[in-house]
């Protein structure tokens, strides 16, 4: 009871703030300045999503430079040093600029609406978190125009290639990673504060939507590992500018230490990019199967297990660095274990589909595409866990195929699914089904044409991150390049779909999808700037996704 009272108190105080903010906004700045100073979770959510879309196209065009150069053996369009900058920047931009901010944008829009909160708990911090990003990526992109070029050591920036042997712009790269990291940490703090404090009275943790759950766990992961990344880039900065030797063997340092630190951040990081996707798919599949999610509780526990396991598997990225046998065995077994909770998730989605009443609207298509192709990426992940075989797979295109399957038709498809799913709520209009279906099918064909042949080129012996290759890899690379361009240009359809839906289209009711559940579907479409100024009534007996 006591906790309910305190929640209610918090609510009223936050609504006061929100109300004050609203009054302020109506007299406040207009035009561009309004976006600069906004503290509204919906506007900040939109900013995040637009930013990540811009980054998707910048990072994507870098991928197309890579695919153009790899279309045929031989050097045709770019020099190796520029090629290395493209692979590095493509990775950094997609990870930190496209996928992560897109999920934060979705969190901003949907978490308050799904838990019945008027806004995020810390609205001004929210504004700050967002505006750090354009600064961070402005700095990062500017390095491309500096003398010696931008970062060219891969998105994993292994020392000493990224320290002693790095271009002079590396300190700027470090600065941008710091800013993006601060943005992520502040965003995560805000999300945790919002979820733990601003749920509408009556909503217990086990009543939250799975998107909220997966984001809560993701936010803890962010807070745990982003400081490690900040630490490792700071050590780099010291090595480069202040004469330390953390990673310089000649000065008594340890280049392998860099990898341990990086992957202690890096492995949880890859789950940061997939857990919210699990949440999205866990909302969309039941909606269009018109059937409750098979196992709500087991989905929550599986997500938490994956998050915990992510802290004890990092060295599976480093099987070839010469770890002792016992360490290799430990990391092999712990990595294989991840397949169990991940399997639970896939089986849950399929059990939800089984004996449902299924329709195939665009969000559902993307969610189903996610399940199939994420599973392919998951299975190749199991193969990569097997150390003796990993010696052959490691640092080849097989790995490139694996992580692109989990990140592109995995994370990115889930983001696309989420946008199609909630676009009626955001704009009041349905996205065009016809264009959406074109977008989906061309993306599916493009993505598989690009990444499936990479399994073969990798197994046959093609290392990753090379601008030129032996003749035996020519056929598969040509297919991958054709697929890459198809996939890349198909995303223009997506932009068109979104612009069209913002401008008009078929009007959506409050509950835009027949099978949809959750508080966000109780507010009008489009959602007004301020929702849930007073907490909505909530009865777990009838409203909870975990009800019996």
């Amino acid at each position: 009871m006591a906790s309910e009272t305190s929640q209610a108190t918090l609510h009223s105080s936050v609504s006061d703030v929100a109300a004050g903010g609203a009054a302020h906004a109506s007299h406040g700045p207009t035009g561009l300045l309004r976006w600069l100073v906004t503290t509204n979770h919906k506007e900040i959510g939109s900013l995040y999503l637009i930013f990540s879309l811009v980054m998707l196209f910048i990072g994507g065009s870098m991928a197309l430079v890579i695919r153009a150069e790899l279309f045929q053996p031989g050097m045709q369009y770019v020099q190796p040093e520029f090629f290395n900058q493209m692979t590095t920047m493509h990775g950094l931009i997609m990870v930190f600029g496209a996928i992560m901010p897109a999920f934060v944008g979705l969190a901003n829009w949907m978490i308050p609406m799904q838990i019945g909160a008027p806004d995020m708990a810390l609205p001004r911090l929210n504004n700050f978190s967002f505006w750090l990003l354009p600064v961070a990526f402005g700095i990062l992109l500017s390095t491309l125009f500096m003398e010696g070029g931008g970062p060219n050591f891969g998105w994993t920036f292994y020392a000493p290639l990224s320290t002693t042997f790095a271009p002079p712009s590396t300190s700027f790269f470090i600065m941008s990673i710091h800013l993006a990291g601060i943005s992520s940490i502040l965003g995560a703090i805000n999300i945790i504060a919002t979820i733990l404090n601003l749920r509408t009275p009556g909503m217990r943790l086990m009543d939250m939507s799975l998107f909220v759950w997966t984001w809560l766990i993701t936010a803890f992961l962010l807070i745990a590992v982003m400081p490690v990344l900040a630490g490792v880039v700071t050590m780099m900065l010291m090595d480069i500018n202040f004469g330390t030797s953390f990673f310089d063997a000649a000065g008594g340092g340890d280049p392998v230490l860099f990898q341990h630190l990086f992957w202690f951040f890096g492995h949880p990081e890859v789950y940061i990019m997939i857990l919210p996707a699990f949440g999205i798919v866990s909302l969309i599949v039941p909606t269009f199967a018109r059937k409750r999610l098979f196992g709500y509780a087991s989905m929550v526990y599986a997500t938490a297990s994956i998050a915990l396991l992510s802290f004890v598997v990092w060295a599976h990225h480093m099987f070839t660095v010469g770890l002792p046998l016992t360490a290799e065995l430990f990391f092999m077994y712990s990595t294989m274990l991840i397949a169990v909770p991940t399997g639970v998730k896939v089986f849950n989605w399929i059990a939800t589909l089984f004996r449902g009443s299924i329709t195939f609207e665009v969000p559902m298509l993307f969610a189903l595409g996610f399940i199939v192709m994420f599973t392919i990426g998951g299975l190749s992940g199991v193969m990569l866990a097997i150390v003796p075989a990993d010696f052959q797979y490691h640092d080849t295109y097989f790995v490139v195929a694996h992580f692109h399957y989990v990140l592109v038709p995995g994370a990115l498809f889930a983001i696309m699914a989420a946008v199609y799913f909630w676009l009626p709520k955001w704009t009041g209009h349905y996205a065009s089904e016809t264009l959406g279906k074109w977008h989906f099918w061309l993306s599916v064909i493009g993505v598989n044409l690009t990444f499936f042949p990479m399994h073969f080129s990798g197994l046959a012996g093609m290392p990753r991150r090379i601008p030129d290759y032996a003749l035996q890899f020519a056929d598969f690379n040509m297919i991958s390049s054709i697929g890459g361009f198809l996939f890349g240009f198909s995303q223009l359809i997506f932009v068109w779909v979104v612009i069209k839906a913002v401008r008009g289209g078929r009007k959506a009711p409050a509950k835009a999808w027949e099978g949809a559940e959750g508080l966000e579907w109780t507010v009008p479409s489009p959602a007004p700037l301020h929702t849930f100024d007073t907490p909505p009534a909530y009865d777990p007996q009838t409203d909870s996704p975990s009800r019996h």
Partner: protein
Amino acid sequence: MGRILYAYLYAASICLIVLSTTAQASSINTSSGFNMPPGVTEISREVYSLHMTILWICVAIAVVVFGVMFYSLIVYRKSKGAKPAHFHENTTVEIIWTAVPLVILVLMAVPATATLKKMYDTSDAELDVLVTGYQWRWRYEYLEEDVSFFSNLATPREQIYEAEEKGDFYLVEVDEPMVVPTGVKVRLLLTANDVIHSWWVPDLAVKKDAIPGFINETWFKVDEPGIYRGQCAELCGRDHAFMPIEVKAVSPDEYQLWLASRREAAEAEVAGADREWSLDELMERGAGTYNTYCAACHQPQGQGLPPMFPALAGVGMSVDPDGLRAHKEIVLYGKTGTAMPAFGSTLSAAELAAVITYERNAWGNDTGDLIQPSAIRAMLESQ
């Protein structure tokens, strides 16, 4: 419903047949062009069969999972009048789908552990070779045999930049292969001079990082004579794609002959410092050495890639009459904190003298300085 299942299995098997019979590409190893090579060692064949086992297990899992999924998508469509059921949560089912994967994983882990233990057993090796990664070449040092040499990419630049037809072994051919005797357990000790590299030959199932400040070890034993090719697998900078590996396995007799010829060549190289060299001789030798060891960074015309790799043509110590001493020192001892390695301990006095002479006289530098190998030898000996 039965028909759908049948059609699905039919489609799945067609896909698998197509995959397993895809036209074979020309290949640099025992790979079919789209699968891992079985390789030529007992270990590599074991790794291959482990790979195929887990691959088929994963394919089987995919067929079952996607089978149920597509069956549901086809049969339980709303447009077909499907009404949603109301079941959720079933402890028995959930225990089964947690336990069964666990059992499958244990079944995979058992052979993987056994193979890994063998791969880690470097005991009783009969030959030790120290492999050092450089930007961007490999160096092999046969410990106890007094033989050591660099192994550089042999593919001409013209092939890379489309001026010439590409050869069969484009980018996977070297000037001096690593030669090993068949039937002998070879232990590799791996390290690096600058950044991290990774020594990978798929046919031997050996991939091990070469890390500055560390010595890693691994081993292989080839039974069949042949040439086995590989590449650096860890991004190591600009020419990461251009530092291939060639392992030539020959009979033990042939191996002894090769060792002898290597020693002879090395002696001749050392003896080269005993005589006076003419400018033309030094320039010719220097051009070859420059193009092999220096051109990747300082560029074939000496224009460099500033600011990382300074230009040599027309600027700096290579045209400064007073810069000769500094020029010699940087070539011999390298420059710490940069990519410039110390060549004094790895190239011969003749090569060093030739390359410095070349850099001081090529591309219009025309300093007229002529550096004799004997002078370089004296400089190295005084250290």
